[in-house]
Structure formats: C-alpha cells, structure tokens
C-alpha cells in the first residue's frame, strides 16, 4: 500500500504559542507522511502535542488562540502551512475530514442528525439536495446504525455515546475525504463499544481506501487498526515504525515504559511498573532529551543534546532490559530518537 504516493506529507512541522513568558513550542519539528488506504496512529499522553499538530494543520485551533505554524505540510500538491482561508475551505471538511473528540459537542444539539450529515454530503461532495438525503441515510447504515431512516430524524441526545460516535464518523465520511483524521475516537466509550468503533473504522478504511490518521493515547486501541505508529512525547516524535515494530519490540524507553504501565489481564504481581514523574510542560523542557528526567537509562549526553529521530544503527534491535539495544534480527523501518541508538558512538 505504501507504493502509492503519499497523500499528505509533513516536514518539520512546528507549532508555537506566543505568551507573556516567552514562546511555548507545543510541537517541535515533526515529520510524517500518510498514504491512501493506510492507517497512521499518532500516540501520546495529553500535552504531547498530538492533537495540536493535527489541528494546526487545518487551522482548527480555537478561535482567538494566537499561534505560529512552521515547516511544511503538502496535501495533494497544496501547501497547508500558511494557506489562505479560501484554499483551506476547499480542503478542510471536504478532502480532509476530522472526527472530533467528544461526539456530543460536535453535533448541533437542536438539529436532527440526518440533515447535519446531508449538509456535508451536499457541500463537501457535491450531492444534490435529494441525493444528499439518500446519501446521509446510506452513510448511517454504512456506519452500522440500525434503522437509518429513523436515525436520520433523531436528535443527537437521543443516541447513546457509541451511536453518536458512529454518526459523527458518518458526518466525516459524507464529504468522501481523501484523508480522515480521528481524534481520540474511542475515548470516553465503554470497552465493549470501543471495540465496535475500532472495528468500524478498520472496515471503512479497507472499503473506502482513504488515508486515516488516528490520534490516541491508547496503545491497545491503536494495535487493532494502525499500520504505522508514531509515538509523540513533549512535542516530538520519539519513535516511528510499523505497529508491530513499535508495540511488540519498542526501541524508545518511553514507548517501553508506556507499554509496561498497561495492566494486562493475565499479568501476575500486584504493583504496576509505573513511569516516574510526568511529562514536562512546553515551557519546562531542558536542553537535552525531554524524556531524560524520567528515563532509567539516562546518560550524560541525554542532558545536553536532543537526540534526532533516525533509523537505528545497523545491528541495533529493540530496547533490552539493561537499557542497551538488543541484537537486531532484521533491518526494519523503525526510527527512534534516543542516544541509546547513537550512531557516532557505534563508530568510535
């Protein structure tokens, strides 16, 4: 699937918020691309910059918030960074759609569900008035809602949380986008419903072939759907690779720590292997690696120099228990920003 040209290519994306105490860099130079039919997951904890990076691209940060976006994001030949309002209006919601976090807030509560979807089909995908109604009903069925004719006439509050999330996905699909961005699509849903929504997204990607970016903090949810995973920490991507590489044989100590902190159902022992401390706020980051204060394998270089995101040196495999890389069985596509994978050190 990665043989196709990427539909969205992001290079050196940075987002900063000017404030009274100086500029806060929420996103600090990230690179990625996403291909048609591919699911890219951007994972991280709150404050990692995962949502801000996506929303700044589409200029969807709350009105009145002053921010600067730097770097480049090219969608189908069009530069999004610094794009004017008219250019963005053609793309946003039509060719790049967003499933927003919090399905209740995303709907107009005093309008019926159906017309809100039909509107997107009409103005986003160019359906006629009658056609757009038919299309909305079809979409409600496509996202797995029973009795779509009746759902069309219901108000958002009449649907359960899971059903609302499905309807919201229908809104995002109505414009037949090339890129679907889903921001925490399963958060606040019960595990049983979470699994349903992940299954729905996976089947829609397989069927409709759009490029999809899932923003999530839940590595388990991501495992069910993502082809590739980018792990963000303090505004940077610290690890990037296929879902198997990142989740099964992580290289970055932060990824390892996040995976260890998840309680499996069959785990023995009582205490959790918790990561100490918390992620530094954008204004409180030191000179070196932002993860260094929480890292059990920290070395001198980590405190003074930021590790770049790059492919590990040849022969360097996943992170071992002692804080050194294990032997690599085969070269992969993984990239990691950590001095454990220092190329210079290998040469010397």
């Amino acid at each position, binding site marked *: 699937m990665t043989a196709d040209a990427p539909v969205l290519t992001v290079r050196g994306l940075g987002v900063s918020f000017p404030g009274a105490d100086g500029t806060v860099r929420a996103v600090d130079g990230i690179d990625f691309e996403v291909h048609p039919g591919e699911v890219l997951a951007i994972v991280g*904890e*709150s404050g990692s910059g995962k949502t801000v990076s996506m929303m700044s691209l589409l200029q969807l940060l709350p009105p009145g918030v002053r921010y600067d976006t730097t770097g480049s994001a090219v969608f189908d030949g069009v530069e999004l960074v610094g794009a004017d309002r008219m250019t963005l209006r053609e793309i946003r919601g039509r060719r790049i759609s967003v499933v927003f976090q919090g399905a209740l807030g995303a709907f107009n509560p005093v309008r019926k569900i159906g017309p809100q979807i039909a509107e997107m089909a009409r103005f986003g995908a160019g359906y006629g008035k009658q056609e757009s109604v038919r299309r909305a009903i079809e979409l409600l069925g496509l996202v797995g809602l*029973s009795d779509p004719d009746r759902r069309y006439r219901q108000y958002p509050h009449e649907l*359960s*949380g*899971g*059903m609302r999330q499905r309807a919201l996905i229908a809104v995002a699909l109505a414009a037949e986008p090339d890129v679907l961005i889903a921001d925490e699509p399963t958060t606040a849903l*019960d*595990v*049983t*419903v*979470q*699994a*349903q929504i*992940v*299954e729905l997204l*996976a089947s829609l990607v397989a069927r409709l072939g759009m490029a999809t970016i899932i923003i999530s*903090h*839940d*590595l*388990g*949810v*991501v*495992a*069910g*759907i*993502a082809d590739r995973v980018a792990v963000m920490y303090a505004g940077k991507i610290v690890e990037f690779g296929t*879902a*198997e590489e990142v*989740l*099964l044989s992580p290289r970055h100590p932060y990824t390892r*720590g*996040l*995976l260890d*902190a*998840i*309680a*499996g*159902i*069959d*785990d023995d*022992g*009582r*205490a*959790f*292997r*918790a*990561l*100490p401390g*918390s992620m530094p706020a954008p204004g409180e980051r030191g000179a070196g690696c932002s993860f260094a204060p929480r890292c059990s394998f920290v070395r001198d270089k980590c405190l003074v120099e930021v590790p770049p995101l790059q492919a590990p040196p040849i022969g360097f495999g996943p992170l071992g228990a002692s804080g050194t890389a294990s032997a690599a069985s085969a070269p992969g596509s993984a990239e990691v920003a950590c001095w454990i994978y220092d190329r210079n050190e290998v040469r010397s």
Partner: protein
Amino acid sequence: MTALLDVDDLVVRFTGRQLGNGLTAVDHASLTVQSGEVLGLVGESGCGKSTLARAVVGLEKPTSGTIRYDGRDVSRLSGRESREFRASVSFVFQDPLASLSPRQTVGQALEEPLIVHGRGTHSSRHARVLELLELVGAPASWGERQPSSLSGGQRQRVAIARALALEPQLLICDEPLTALDVSTQAQIANVFIELQERLSLAYLFIGHDLGVVRRLADRVAVMHLGEIVETGTSTEVLSSPAHPYTRALVDSIPIPDPAIQRERVRNVLRGEVPSPLNPPSGCRFRTRCPLAFERCEQEHPATFMVDPGHGVACHLWDPDESRGAVLRDAVRPGPRTLL
C-alpha cells in the same frame, strides 16, 4: 465473621416525569466487603455501579434493601454512630476537583475534615496534614499550594490524602484512575496498592479497566443493567469468566499486540446496550449475548455457583439446563464439574 460492608438486596429506583415508569438503577444487588479486602465493581457506564456506591455513603436513597456497616443498618444509626460511620467510610471521586475547593490550599483541604469532626489541636492537625501528604508520596511543600497549580495525578493524590484524613476503614473509589493519563494511572494505582497494604484498608473499587481491577482487587462483582451478574475472586472471574457478559468485557480489553488485537476486534460484541428505562425481559444481557436461547427471553436467571465463592446469574450454569453443558464451553473452556 461480620462483613465490614454488607449490601443486601439493594434497590435504587429513580422516578420523574421524564423517566416514564421509573428507572431502576440498582436492582436487587447484594455484595459484601470484608475488613481489609478490596472488592472491584465493574461494568459498562450506566450499569448502576456508581449509584450503588453513592447509596452506601448516603448520597442516594435506597428504595429497598439494607446496607449494613460493621453489622449495623446504616439507615438506623444514632447521631454519634452516624458521625463515626462518616469518618470510617470515605469516598474518592473520578474528578479530584470534586473534593477539592479552588479557594483552599492543599493543607487547608486536608485539615478541614479534622476540624469538622473536632479532631486534635491546631498543631496536631498540622502534623497530621504532613503525615497525610507523606502517605500519598507528596512533598510537604504541597500544603501551601492551590489545587489549580497541581497536575491531574497530583490532585488525585491530594484527594486520596483527604479521604484518609479521618483514618477510615473503607474507601469507596469511583473510577479514580479514569481521568488520568496512562503513565499517571499506573502511579496512582500504585498509591492505592501501597496504602491498602500499609493501612489494611478495605476498598470498594469501581473501575472499567479490568487490567487494573484484576491487580488491585481480591474479589470482583460484575454489574450489568443494575444487576450483579457474576462474583468471585478477581483471578477466577477475570481469568476464567463464567458469564457471557464478563467474557465479552474481558475480550474487549484492548491489547497492544497488533496480531491479537486485529483478530479480537473482528469478534466484537454486537448490538447496543439496552436502555435501563426499558430493560429486556428475562436475562437483560440476552439481546447482546451470542449464546442466548428461548429460556433467556422468558425467565430471569437465578444465581448458580460454578466454584466455591464464584456465583453467576446465567441459565447456562443451571444444572438442570440441558443446553448448558454444550454452550458453557464457549464461555469457559475446560472440563469442570458443576456444584
């Protein structure tokens, strides 16, 4: 042995114009928590687990049933007994700000319950505040800070410290980790584990993360649409569930392994959670149960024991149910004899 907390046949029913015939949030639920024991209470949102917990501390009025604490019916306590009960049972909410005032410093918030209950002198209370901060792994300097200057995990530590102020025996924790980030969740879960071991506390721990509950709890009660459908040790219930609903919950826990998770996602539980305003006849899980048969529609299941201390409300486990023998294996594989 008298249980520390004994909830017997509890019903909590809400009525109101918008609720039609009324909503039974807790429907004949019974559970016990022994002294020093952790009982995990799990189920989907809207199943009544929070209502049950709130009824225990008097935040909801039971429609029927009894709640006994240390052998005494909590609805018939004298003034002094009632004060003792409120000191002995404490609540930790999902949102730590629910129990912290933005106008108080952390130190004031921790001291307040001591003042209200007339405990100690000014200086002994101050010493207790420092002790409480130490208990939850917080530095003494937090005493001067405002809750707004703390992170979510730090606030939850303070909320736990406040809940401990009056040296309770039972802590009721309503999804205390849900609003926290993954790495913070593990830290706070460890605080709960450490405190429980250090102070021999009992917890009624409500959570939807079964991995967390499995580690924290000695026993688990699974709730579905107001009813408790399975109880037993957390190892038994969560590692080899007997109720198809518990099986579905366990199978829905996301596992960060792509091959396993993609396969599991394909086998999700179908259908919507029924409305508690109009629950299905017979077994309330039958509309989503992959194993349901006619009897499930007609008859409300009794509770059967599948192992000592492991009860399940499902027709599959009725020894007289001929279809059970075959279908049981789909929920809980392996040879076993029925009690």
